[in-house]
């Protein structure tokens, strides 16, 4: 026999349960504040002005900005025990050897890591720092100068401080190229390209190039390139150069970018409406399992059905008719982009006139990212 409780009892039980989670704060929690990067990353448009104020030290700003974009890969997310030896000076110990680099040509080496591969001049040296972090992104430097360990650790009786920043110095005629992986929820290479950047195709996928005003270099070129199969993930290749010889270095970088390929290679979406329909069919079947309201959408064309809620919520104030139309297209990202629009017959106080959802579909028909928003006019 069931026992009965009221909604108020249930609410109280939920509150009580959440209150009962024992969470003594770890002693290390506040220490994160002692190992912040040296400066908050300023937006790039101001980096030139900042450089005038802080001189060469502002190089760190650029690195930290890139690190932030890449999901803060330098920053260990857990504080370990105090380091046995204190050192406040930048470490100049040799970087651990990078991933195997094979000779692709007499004067070129091959970089192949984290799904990204390209050729680069053999004269460039690779600096590969392993940084432990639960949200780390691999970082590698290719450079014609020494690139010291970006993070230094100091400790005293109370706490350990780790600071990460760009510690290399560009001398005349040198360059440093940083390779990072990043992700932002909602990022879409095809629609999120910054103003002033140049659209490109790299390795068969969309990319863009920005020219950054560098604080201590003559030229800073930053390529943001797609990461296959993941709309909101990307790679960043950031190159800082100091003249003379900028044009030659730029040519080398452009050759590097032209050689980019993905490992494994990107499989182009099949062409033709049959492939698109098959992808849409597969995706709709999966969506309906999530919420039967997705059944409003049909491959045969617009449908009008009575619904009492939107597929991902919220409920409507009153059940009413909704007209559902869908469109699927092959994206340059080599993913299917399905647009699902649900228009209500009369505006609803919870929903307005309806919603448009963008559902990304993987080449195998499985569901990728889904982003919903108000109905497009």
């Amino acid at each position, binding site marked *: 026999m069931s026992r009965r*409780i009221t909604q108020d009892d*249930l609410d109280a039980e939920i509150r009580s*349960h959440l209150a009962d989670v024992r969470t003594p704060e770890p002693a290390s929690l506040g220490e994160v504040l002692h190992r*912040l990067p040296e400066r908050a990353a300023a937006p790039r448009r101001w980096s030139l002005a900042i450089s005038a104020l802080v001189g060469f030290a502002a190089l760190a700003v650029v690195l930290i900005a890139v690190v932030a974009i890449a999901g803060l890969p330098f920053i260990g*997310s*857990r504080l370990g025990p105090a380091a046995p030896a204190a050192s406040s000076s930048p470490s100049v110990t040799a970087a651990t050897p990078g991933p195997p680099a094979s000779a692709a040509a007499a004067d070129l080496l091959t970089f192949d890591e984290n799904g990204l591969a390209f050729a680069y001049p053999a004269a460039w040296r690779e600096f590969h720092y392993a940084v432990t972090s639960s949200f780390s992104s691999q970082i590698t430097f290719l450079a014609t100068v020494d690139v010291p360990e970006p993070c230094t650790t100091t400790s005293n009786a109370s706490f350990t401080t780790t600071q990460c920043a760009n510690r290399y110095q560009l001398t005349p005629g040198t360059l440093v190229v940083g390779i990072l992986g990043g992700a932002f929820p909602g990022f879409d290479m095809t629609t999120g390209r910054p103003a002033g950047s140049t659209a490109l195709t790299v390795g068969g996928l969309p990319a863009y190039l920005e020219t950054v005003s560098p604080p201590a270099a003559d030229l800073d070129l930053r390529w943001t390139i797609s990461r296959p199969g993941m709309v909101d993930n990307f790679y960043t290749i950031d190159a800082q150069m100091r003249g003379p010889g900028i044009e030659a270095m730029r040519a080398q970088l452009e050759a590097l970018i032209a050689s980019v390929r993905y490992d494994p290679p990107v499989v182009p979406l099949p062409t033709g409406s049959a492939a698109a329909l098959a992808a849409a069919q597969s995706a709709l079947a999966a969506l309906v399992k999530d919420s039967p309201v997705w059944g409003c959408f049909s491959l045969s064309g617009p449908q009008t059905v009575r619904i009492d809620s939107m597929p991902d919520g919220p409920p409507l104030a009153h059940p009413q008719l909704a007209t559902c139309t869908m469109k699927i297209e092959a994206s340059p990202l080599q993913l299917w982009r399905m647009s699902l629009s649900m228009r209500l017959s009369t505006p609803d106080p919870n929903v307005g006139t309806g919603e448009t959802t963008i559902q990304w579909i993987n080449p195998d028909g499985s569901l990728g990212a889904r982003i919903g928003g108000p109905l497009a006019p």
Partner: protein
Amino acid sequence: LVIVIPDDGEVLTPPAEHAVDEDRRAVFGRLAGAELGASYQLATRLLGNRGDAEDAVNEAILRAWESFDRLRDRGAFRPWLTRIVVNVCRNDLRHRRVLQIDPLGDDDRTAADPINDGSLRDGVARALRRLGPEQRVVVVLRYWNDLRVDDIARLLGVPSGTVKWRLHAANRRIKAELSRSGWEVER
């Protein structure tokens, strides 16, 4: 000029004179330091275990520091940081298949509580564990942070109706789970 930070949707303006303020670190440290405890408590309830919560708070603090120059109103630091913490935790939850929950401490309530012999409590715990990320977030914000629906909506950047629906769906799921434990919730 308005900048939209894509990971939390916060609308921010460019920095004013404080852009190169050498006291920034101290100001940030004071503001963030005051919120560390609350952020950790929230993250623990969202993520279910202390290790992930510590990671999430660390990440949130670093993200906040990275964007600190662009925080228009430093008086809004608390909701701003809370939003970042919630977003970090949501992202974490979305990428997990299994929610790892730390065991609770000893429960000394059940003997003295006539309504609850432990099965209700267990049922609620199980139900909360099985909520999807979005439902879990609104339940924690509603029942732990005691936020109103409109405030949750503002914090998450979604319509109030969406928050209501998620709470409704979460409640329905919790009731279904409780009914398996022999509890019925009266209307």
